[in-house]
């Protein structure tokens, strides 16, 4: 009866870690290397990357669609990440309060490299940089679709389902 002790503690610890991972919102700060890493990830799950900013009216309008749709998919199959393009000078006074006020639970990556021309083509060569825009990506199954402009709830589901 002595042996299981440490295992149970380990199991408990592991489950605790995974719970925080599932429920806790991650806010990361990206530069080009982090963005590149995200875009080149080899996780076998669909990545839905929404490019937005609090100053972008149509982005704010479509944001609840992502929150809502994310709830109806298995997080082990679809990962949502909101890449904020808020100005670095407005992250603390505008972006973070916005996330809190609007109860945004999805992971956020703040792209702090404002030399846009150095990384826009990494996302999609056709993209001129207008937001909102959303990338649907699974590198393992070689699926990639870049949607420029707003996407509504049925549209979002349609693109996700097509890639699952």
């Amino acid at each position, binding site marked *: 009866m002595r042996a299981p002790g440490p295992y149970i503690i380990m199991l408990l610890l592991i489950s605790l870690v995974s719970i925080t991972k599932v429920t806790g919102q991650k806010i990361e700060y990206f530069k080009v290397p982090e963005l590149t890493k995200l875009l080149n990830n080899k996780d076998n799950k669909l990545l839905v990357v929404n490019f937005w900013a609090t100053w972008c009216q149509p982005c704010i309008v479509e944001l609840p669609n992502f929150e809502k749709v994310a709830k109806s998919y298995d997080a082990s199959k679809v990962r949502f990440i909101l890449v904020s393009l808020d100005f670095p000078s407005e992250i603390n006074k505008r972006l973070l309060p916005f996330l809190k006020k609007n109860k945004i639970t999805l992971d956020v990556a703040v792209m702090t490299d404002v030399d846009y021309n150095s990384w826009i083509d990494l996302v999609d060569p056709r993209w*001129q940089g207008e*937001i909102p825009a959303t990338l649907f990506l699974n590198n393992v199954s070689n699926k990639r679709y870049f949607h420029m402009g707003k996407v509504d709830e049925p549209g979002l589901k349609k693109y996700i389902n097509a890639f699952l």
Partner: protein
Amino acid sequence: MKKLILVLTGVFMFAGITRAAAPYKAGDDVSDFSLKNVNGEMVSLSQFNDAKGFIVVFACNTCPVVKKYEQRIIDLNKEFSSKGYPVVAINSNDQTVSPGDSYSDMQKTAKSKGYAFPYLYDESQEVAKRFGATNTPHVYLISKKEGQLVVEYVGAIDNNADDAAKADKKYVADAVHALLKNDQVAVTNTKAIGCGIKWKKS
């Protein structure tokens, strides 16, 4: 015969669509336009006899990125209009989709900010479509070559929307300086995060 006409119409329509969809890039000829300025007058590029070219900026009243760049647009005109490259700003946003971008709103913005350059209303959005403009702000630097208007540069004003003082690549200013020295423009295309042009709902 009817079938042939139908097929031909289809082909022409398709050709028209593809041409409209091909955005201007450096080296392309520009077709002139005629748009209403905030003072009520119609403006065409051909009216500027003394100009060596133009800094055409697709802008608007509402986009926060345009607001970030507004002073820099005013300054570009201040620096380069006397040297032959005036700013010509165009608002192509649909006022139904973007209510702050109506003609009267443009008049207010131009007046309150003291625009010393034309601020034109592209109500039909034809000019934005012909240029292939997608964002605001979106710059097309144009020069006159043997009477023909030619695109020299397409893209951003510089590489730091947030902070003008931190911009260390001044794309438009560098390109105009090169043209003034009869040099080739080194960087002819850049991209930048911006607001999408608010297209009419079809």
